[in-house]
């Protein structure tokens, strides 16, 4: 399954004027387009391609392949893209375990990697690399934001829940970094678990004031539905992934009122975001998720850098990336010393607009927030 997209078909007229000195850039996009996690990868791919289309950039060629959420497959695809497709730059990976398998090897071979989603802590700290840019977040960020929110709201007793894998433990650690109240329960579930009756019974018995959970994709859908059906009624909160646009439809009305944290929301008030949300809806006939927004920013960052420097001149291109002079849908955006974002994080609430469930910003958790690992990065 190999698709080559000739990017920017509609922008032929623009290409002749503004981009005369842009060198061609070949981008390898490895993302999840099949299996249970496909919703996230499809959104990332669509957001990325939309940005190129709107920029009218014909010099950026994208090769897309499906990693099926399997690390070994992602590694093979990355090798193939570097060896035979001769890409200059890789992007697209959604999952942290896949990123850990692909990124260190790719950047060691002198390629650039721009992460549109995963931000595992080693790559932000000790294993950071000058060719690795994370355009999304460091994994702990959304969870830290929710911990900070719970702390500031004065919530006394929390029940916290995440799957038992690296991103899950990172999540609860991120939450605990800012939340100092009492934890009446800390539960790790099996990765891929779909029945949460046992955990929900514990939540009911715990006497918590609120429940924080991180369960991406289908796990979160299952949890929230079962939680609502069980009638426990203790308010839910979580990182944006738990209530992202790609899962809200499947969760249904049970999600209404849940607080969640993200660096982006569809109602963020800036020109770039308005253009993005409108164009995405028009092009794909659905609302964008945070994954689409991050990938859209990633593509625009590449476009901005390729206008300033040739990708063949690694030092100049790297410097151009680092400047991050593009109109982010998140409003303001800049890179920290470890090439991870410094950005605002918002608290959102799930609301119903007409027939569609979506998120609305109700507060700011952090302003200009970096990450806890930047100091460990020696670059």
């Amino acid at each position: 399954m190999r698709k080559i997209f000739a990017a920017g078909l509609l922008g032929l007229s623009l290409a002749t004027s503004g981009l005369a000195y842009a060198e061609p850039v070949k981008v390898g996009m490895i993302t999840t387009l099949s299996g249970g996690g496909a919703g996230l990868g499809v959104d990332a791919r669509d957001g990325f391609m939309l940005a190129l289309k709107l920029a009218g950039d014909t010099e950026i060629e994208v090769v897309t392949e499906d990693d099926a959420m399997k690390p070994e497959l992602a590694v093979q695809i990355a090798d193939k893209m570097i060896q035979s497709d001769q890409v200059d730059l890789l992007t697209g990976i959604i999952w942290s375990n896949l990123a850990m398998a692909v990124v260190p090897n790719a950047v060691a071979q002198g390629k650039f990697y721009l992460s549109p989603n995963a931000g595992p802590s080693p790559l932000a700290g000790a294993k950071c690399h000058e060719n690795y840019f994370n355009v999304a977040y460091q994994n702990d960020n959304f969870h830290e934001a929710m911990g900070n929110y719970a702390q500031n709201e004065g919530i006394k007793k929390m029940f916290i829940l995440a799957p038992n894998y690296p991103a899950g433990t990172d999540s609860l650690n991120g939450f605990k970094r800012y939340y100092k109240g009492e934890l009446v329960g800390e539960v790790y579930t099996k990765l891929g678990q779909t029945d949460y009756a046992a955990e929900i019974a514990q939540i009911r018995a715990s006497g918590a004031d609120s429940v924080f959970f991180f369960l991406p994709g289908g796990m979160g859908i299952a949890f929230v539905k079962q939680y609502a059906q069980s009638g426990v009624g203790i308010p839910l909160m979580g990182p944006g992934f738990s209530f992202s646009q790609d899962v809200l439809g499947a969760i249904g009305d049970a999600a209404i009122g849940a607080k969640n944290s993200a660096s982006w929301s569809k109602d963020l008030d800036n020109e770039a975001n308005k253009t993005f949300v409108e164009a995405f809806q028009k092009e794909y006939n659905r609302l964008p998720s945070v994954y689409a927004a991050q990938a859209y920013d990633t593509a625009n960052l590449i476009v901005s850098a390729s206008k300033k420097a040739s990708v063949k001149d690694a030092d100049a291109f790297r410097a151009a990336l680092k400047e991050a002079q593009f109109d982010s849908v998140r409003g303001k955006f800049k890179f920290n010393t470890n090439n991870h974002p410094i950005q605002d994080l918002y608290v959102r609430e799930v609301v119903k607009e007409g027939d569609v469930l979506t998120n609305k910003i109700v507060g700011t958790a952090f302003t200009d927030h970096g990450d806890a690992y930047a100091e460990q990065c020696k670059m």
Partner: protein
Amino acid sequence: MSTALIIEQLLNGLQFGVMLFLMAAGLTLIFGVMGLINLAHGSFYMIGAFACAAVAAATGSFWIGLAASLAAAAAAGTLVEVAVIRRLYDRDHLDQVLATFALILIFSEATRWLFGSFPLYLDIPPVLAGAVALPGGAHYQLYRLAIIGIGVLVAVGLYYLISRTRLGMRIRAGESDREMIAALGVDIGTLYTMVFALGAALAGLAGALVGALQSVQVGMGEPVLILAFVVIVIGGIGSIKGALVGAVLVGLTDTLGRFLLPKLFTVFLGPADGATTGAALASMLIYIVMALILAFRPKGLFPATA
């Protein structure tokens, strides 16, 4: 730890076990009667869930969706048996595994092509919403109680079908000597198709029932399939009774393990480490139980054929 919590967790274990039984019954029946390893059984589970979600969304009725899930899974089962499986009875297990694995991929991608990559929405019917109060102060979700009820009905129905009806007699005869009952004039081909469709319909029913609790998405059948295999190995391959006992055993072990082990380890290791270690061990628990049972009863708890 209150009595109410323990009662709730026992019921949770039972409900999980009953759901596994619906999957395992078809799988063990197909293996017992036809000697076929069917990896695509999880696909029928998925088909049931998607059919229920799609029809329930179109008609607004969960019950019509549930009927559609049975029909769709049985139809898919019949089609697969006639088109593919029929050619595999005389082949060895490796060929069967390869062909039915290919079927998983075909069904998954076809479902994605039809319904897209995003999970579908399916809610429990309003009649069964809410919880009921039980003795000891426990509250239990009505829908999950209904699943337990349906599972018991299916178990009784299957028992009656296998041991009291003519069809059941033929199924049992087919299990012990296929050539002989063919020689006696029983249309073994039709019999196999019926058994296969019955197994598929049960998987579809499980998928639809569980789809309302969990998320209806591509690939939802495979994790359940693995557990269903564990169940039939523990219970004894080919035995419906074994599938029932094995399923309830696995359901209770898994649920109580997830609930009690982290608590136990927290006593020794403190909250953060205890919770992760306990959770890790809990996820292995059913496989440990399976290994132990196989060590003492290599053919499972209720070996089907002597």
